[in-house]
C-alpha cells in the first residue's frame, strides 16, 4: 500500500448509526474542524431524523441510505451526499455548501435556504423551496404543489413537471421548469428567457450533473402585483 493510499483511508471516518447515537454522529461532524478528518461516511441511517445537521466546515459527508426529517439542515460549507431518499425538510435553511440527494425528497426540501446548492435526483414533493432566500435548487424529477411559495431569492430548476400553485406569492426567486406546470400560484407568471437566464441555467444544470439543455426550459417569476415592491425604491429596502 502506498503512503498516499494510507493517508486517503485514514482521512475517511466512518460513523455507523447501528452502533452510535445520532448526537455522537452530529458531534463528530460538527467537531471536524478540530480534527484531520475531511471525509465522513454515515452508515445505517435507517430513516433517522436530523442526520448531518448544522455542519460548518468544508467537509464531505456521504450518507449510505435513506433519512427522515431535516437531513442536512442549516448546512454551511459542507457537501452532504445522501445515497437514498430524504424525509421532510431536507437541507432546510441551508446557508452554503452542497446537498445532493440520490433519491426522492419529501415536503419542503430546501425551505428558507439562504445559499448553497441542493440537488435532488429523484422527485421532490410539495412545498419544495418554500420561502427560499438565495439557495439554488435543482430537481431532476418532478416537484409537488405549492413549491417556491413566497420564494424571495435564488433559483429553482425543475427538469420534470411542477404541481399546483407554483410560485404562489412569489418575490424575486427565479423558477425554471422544463416540463408541464399544473397551475401557477397567485402573482406568478411566465417570463421571457433572456441570455443571462440561459447562462444561469447552464451553470446550474452543469453543477447538478443534469442532462438537459437550458433552451428546453421556461422561466417563471413574480408579476410584482401582489407585494409592495417598487424597483425605484430598491436602495431603501
Amino acid at each position, binding site marked *: 500500500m502506498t503512503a498516499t493510499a494510507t493517508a486517503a483511508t485514514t482521512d475517511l471516518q466512518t460513523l455507523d448509526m447501528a452502533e452510535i447515537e445520532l448526537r455522537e454522529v452530529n458531534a463528530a461532524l460538527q467537531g471536524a474542524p478540530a480534527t484531520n478528518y475531511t471525509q465522513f461516511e454515515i452508515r445505517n441511517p435507517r430513516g433517522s431524523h436530523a442526520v448531518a445537521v448544522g455542519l460548518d466546515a468544508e467537509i464531505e459527508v456521504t450518507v449510505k441510505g435513506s433519512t*427522515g426529517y431535516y437531513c442536512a439542515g442549516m448546512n454551511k460549507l459542507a457537501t452532504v451526499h445522501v445515497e437514498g*431518499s430524504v*424525509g*421532510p425538510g431536507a437541507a432546510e435553511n441551508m446557508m452554503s455548501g452542497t446537498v445532493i440527494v440520490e433519491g426522492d425528497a*419529501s*415536503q419542503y426540501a430546501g425551505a428558507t435556504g439562504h445559499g448553497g446548492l441542493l440537488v435532488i435526483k429523484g422527485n421532490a*414533493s410539495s412545498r419544495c423551496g418554500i420561502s427560499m432566500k438565495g439557495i439554488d435548487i435543482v430537481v431532476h424529477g418532478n416537484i*409537488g*404543489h405549492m413549491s417556491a411559495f413566497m420564494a424571495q431569492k435564488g433559483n429553482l430548476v425543475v427538469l420534470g413537471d411542477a404541481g399546483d400553485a407554483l410560485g404562489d406569492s412569489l418575490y424575486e426567486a427565479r423558477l425554471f421548469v422544463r416540463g408541464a406546470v399544473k397551475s401557477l400560484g397567485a402573482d406568478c407568471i411566465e417570463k421571457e428567457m433572456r441570455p443571462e437566464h440561459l447562462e444561469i441555467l447552464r451553470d446550474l444544470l452543469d453543477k447538478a450533473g443534469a442532462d438537459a439543455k437550458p433552451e428546453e426550459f421556461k422561466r417563471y417569476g413574480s408579476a410584482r402585483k401582489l407585494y409592495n415592491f417598487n424597483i425605484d425604491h430598491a436602495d431603501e429596502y
Partner: protein
Amino acid sequence: MCGIVGLFLKKDDLRPKLGDMLTDMLITMTDRGPDSAGIAIYGDDSDGLKVTVQSDTPESDFAGLDTALGEALSSPVTMKAVDTHAVLTLPEGTRDAAIAFLEARGLRIMGLGEAMEIYKEIGLPKDVAARFNLRAMGGSHGIGHTRMATESAVTTLGAHPFSTDEDQCLVHNGSLSNHNQMRRILTEKGFAPRTENDTEVAACYISSRIAEGANLGEALEGTLDDLDGFFTFVMGTKTGFGVVRDPIACKPAVMAETDDYVAFGSEYRAFANLPGIEAARVWEPEPATVYFWER
C-alpha cells in the same frame, strides 16, 4: 401528530411473520404517538364471524363469557381472551343477538369480521404490543396506529383503528373540521358513530359508501369530496388495503412496495426492519390520490 403503519402481504410465506413485522413498525412510530396504540390484523378466515370485545375488568367479565353467550345463542361459542380483549367466534346468524348480549354485559365492541381482529389500548406502543402478544399474530394484512390525541380524549375507544362495519377498519393521521355536520348526515343514514372521535366519523362515512355499493377505491375517493380537514387515511377491508391523503397533504406518508408486500408508514423509519427494503420501490403517495390493493 400520530403515526400510522400498514402492511399488505402479496405472498403467503410471510404470513406467519405479519405480527412481528407490524409490531416493529408500530414501536418505531412511538414518538409520533405515545398516548395509545392499536392494530387491526386480518388473519385466517375463521369458522364464523369473529367479534372482538374489550373490558377494563377482563378477569370477571371474560370468565365464563363463552359459555354464557353460547347458552344465550343456543349454540357453542369459542373464545380467545388476551389481556383486556377477547375474540368470540359466533355461530352463523347470531350476530345481532350476540352484540345485544355483549353490550348488555357492558362490554365494548371493538370490531367484527370473518378475518379481522382489533386490539387497542392506551399506553406506549411497546407495552400495548406486549400485552396482546402482537408479534405472534399471523395474517394477510394489518394496520396499526400510534396516537397523539387532539380531537378527543385519550381512551381505549378513542384509540385507532376504528371499525364501523364487518372486516373494515380505518386509521387516520390528521383532524377533520366538518365531522359534526357529517355525523348528523351519517346518523340519518343509519351509520351513527358511537364516540366523539372525528376519525370514527370518517370510518362511518367509508362504511356507508361501501354499503351503498362503492368499492374501496371509490369510497376513499369520496372522502376527498365530502370530508374537510387534514387526513392521511389507511383503510383495511377483508381483501383490500387502501391509502388516501387530503389535497394539502401536510400529514406525512411514505410507501414501499416489493414483490412480497406493500407497506405504509408515516415515516421511512418504520420500514427499516422490513425484509428487502433496500431494493423496494419507495415513494411518497401523491395528494388527493387514492391507492388501493385487492387480493
